[in-house]
């Protein structure tokens, strides 16, 4: 039934807008594909996010497109998000999304995942948390870590822009030391919290720190993280998506900033537990990644 909710009844096909017909016919639904979905299909298929209301040139919008293109089974995926810039995009995604209270996202996702496993024992249902650094590393840190401790089978993706961007620029736990924002004029007093390391020590089987500068790398990490979460346990991705407005960049400078930080605060970090490594090796042999 998951894919049937996108099949238009023939009686109404003539009154449906083209974008909805395209969603049925040209989106890369897993059930219709022989090979894993990926960013390679982006140029000539229907995207699950067509329009959004973020600022022009926002790297977060690009990162979300990469994430959506790499979901292994979008028709059987539920995305849980939290308040922040990301929540301006989520209402536009053509998937099931749940907006939680600020910081609660991992608790909400845990409940959804458990109920789905009970309700659909024979179907793989993926639950993906997608929230900003304020919700993940700052106000919601407790809920994030507790879901790792409980070994929930969910993937947590943090779009880390190092600031509370859409409330005017307050510092978060993920802000770099010394950084000044409009609402943090004295500068951050302590170092950026290395959430990817916390995730590792808190029991995540797959933890990555990266920027969204390389679409293929983001898509690969998303796919691996979701597959590991499905079979082994919690996974975490920390992806740098700078707020170009808050750090004083123009719309065309986001990519450059991410590339710079590939060697800086977001230098590549990847932890894969032995069980996850073995599982991913098997997935590769089976052509799932």
């Amino acid at each position, binding site marked *: *039934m998951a894919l*049937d*909710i*996108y*099949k*238009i*009844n*023939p*009686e*109404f096909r003539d*009154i*449906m*807008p083209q974008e*909805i017909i395209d969603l049925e016919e040209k989106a890369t639904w897993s059930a219709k594909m022989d090979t894993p979905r990926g960013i390679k299909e982006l140029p000539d298929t229907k995207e699950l996010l067509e*329009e*959004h*209301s973020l600022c022009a040139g926002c790297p977060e919008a690009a990162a979300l497109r990469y994430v959506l293109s790499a979901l292994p089974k979008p028709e059987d995926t539920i995305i849980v998000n939290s308040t922040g810039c990301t929540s301006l995009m989520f*209402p*536009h*995604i*053509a998937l099931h999304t749940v907006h939680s209270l600020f910081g609660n996202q991992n608790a909400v996702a845990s409940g959804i995942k458990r109920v789905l496993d009970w309700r659909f024992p024979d179907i793989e249902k993926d639950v993906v948390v997608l929230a900003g650094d304020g919700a993940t590393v700052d106000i919601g840190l407790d809920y994030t870590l507790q879901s790792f401790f409980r070994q929930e089978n969910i993937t947590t993706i943090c779009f880390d822009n190092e600031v509370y961007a859409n409330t005017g620029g307050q510092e978060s736990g993920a802000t770099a030391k010394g950084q000044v924002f409009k609402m943090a004029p004295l500068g951050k007093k302590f170092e950026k919290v290395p959430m990817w390391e916390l995730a590792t020590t808190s029991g995540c089987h797959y933890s990555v720190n990266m920027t969204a500068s390389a679409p293929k790398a983001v898509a690969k990490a998303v796919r691996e993280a979701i597959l590991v979460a499905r079979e082994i346990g919690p996974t975490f991705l920390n992806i740098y998506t700078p707020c170009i407005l808050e750090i004083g960049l123009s719309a065309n400078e986001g990519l450059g900033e991410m590339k710079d930080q590939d060697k800086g605060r977001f230098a590549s970090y990847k932890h894969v537990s032995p069980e996850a490594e073995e599982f991913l090796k098997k997935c590769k042999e089976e052509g799932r990644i």
Partner: protein
Amino acid sequence: MANQGPAYYSPYPAATYEGVITPPEGKALLLEDVVDEETAMREIAKQMLTKENATIFPGPQVLYAWSDEAKRKATLIKEMAEVLNANMIPMYDYRPKYPKIDAEIEINPNHPNLTIWENKIKAAIFIGVHCHYANVALKIVRAETDCYTIAMCALSGHEDAMATIRDQHASDLEKFIKIAKEVKSELGV
């Protein structure tokens, strides 16, 4: 300035504030009166056949082929539109459209009044719209337009519509189509 509805400047544009609640099982609601289902069906058919630019707004529960009931209802709704000489404008999902909707050919529950104003719709049937969004849309339409709204609901009805019939499954739609044909012949339209 568009013509506004019965709740226009009220700070609480909801029928429940005026003591109107959903009808009991087996009954229907016409404005604030609980009536027999057949009486309501006759009035609904009359309104749709006599008001300008009568339109059916099918929602996701009937637009998509996700169950046998949805497929059956789709056929019946198409037939209903032909009998009522009504247009059809889809409420295909509930996402807010960015930057704006094309009000001539689509309706969105977050601002349904735009479509009703654009097409000068004076009577409309909402069918297959999930309860929570039907409630939102009907309140907005009630306050912002003079459209006679009709909720054909598979559950317990919607008090914010001018007319609501409840527990409408495929067999009930067949009954409505039969009545609508009779009313159409009586009116000679």
